């Protein structure tokens, strides 16, 4: 087994244990991911968040800024847009910044 295959197995195992949402992409594909929204502040007086979804890069081929997706958590779907350039790392994982649609 080569290292890339090991990484892929590790990513799949992480998703199986840690995924907290599904993302429905524009074309209808549904992928599992990890949704996070750490708190953030603008101008020192507006509080909000910086939502992202992390998933396997191979599940979201060609995803780019402006693409629409629906994040479903606890049976509640929320429409988002890809807010910036997805940030893949070298292990087959990608972090996608989001903004509310």
């Amino acid at each position, binding site marked *: 087994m080569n290292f890339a295959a090991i990484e892929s197995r590790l990513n799949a195992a992480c998703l199986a244990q840690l995924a907290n949402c599904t993302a429905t992409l524009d074309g209808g594909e549904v992928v599992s991911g990890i949704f996070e*929204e750490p708190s*953030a*502040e*603008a*101008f*020192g*007086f*507006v*509080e*909000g*968040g*910086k*939502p992202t979804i992390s998933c396997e890069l191979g599940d979201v081929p060609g995803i780019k800024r402006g693409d629409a997706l629906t994040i479903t958590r606890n049976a509640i779907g929320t429409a988002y847009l890809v*807010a910036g350039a997805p940030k893949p790392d070298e292990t087959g994982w990608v972090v996608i910044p*989001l*903004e*509310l649609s």
Partner: protein
Amino acid sequence: MSSKALQINEAMQALFETPALTGIGAGGVVDDPDYAYEVSDLPMVAVYMGDEPDPSRSLINAHDHTITMTVRITAKKGGTSGKSALGSCDALMVQTHNRLMADLTLGGLAMDVRQQGTRRSRDVLEVPVAYTEIDYAVDYRTTTTSLES
């Protein structure tokens, strides 16, 4: 018992509160620019006091003051349908400016209100947000021994 500067601040706030500004959000019109507001509160308006240079004494027993009042509009993308965050500040900016220019004495408290500089800034939370703020120089008079009248 409040200074005339604060009275002017409150008069401007009241001017923007009644009647309600079209499109104002849950945050409303406030005099505290630094309170922790949430994206769901936007768009909102803040009116707050700035600096004053030394008062002049062009009239015996009187001090002529100029205070910088700032009107800040904070909005989010789509606050006005189809507009960016900065574009969504525009409608409220125009409304507040028009109300201010309609009575340059603020009900008798001031001698004049003059528009000054405009500043804009943008940031991104779960949606893009922005603020536009305009400074107004407000001239008012008090006696030499009082800040209130």
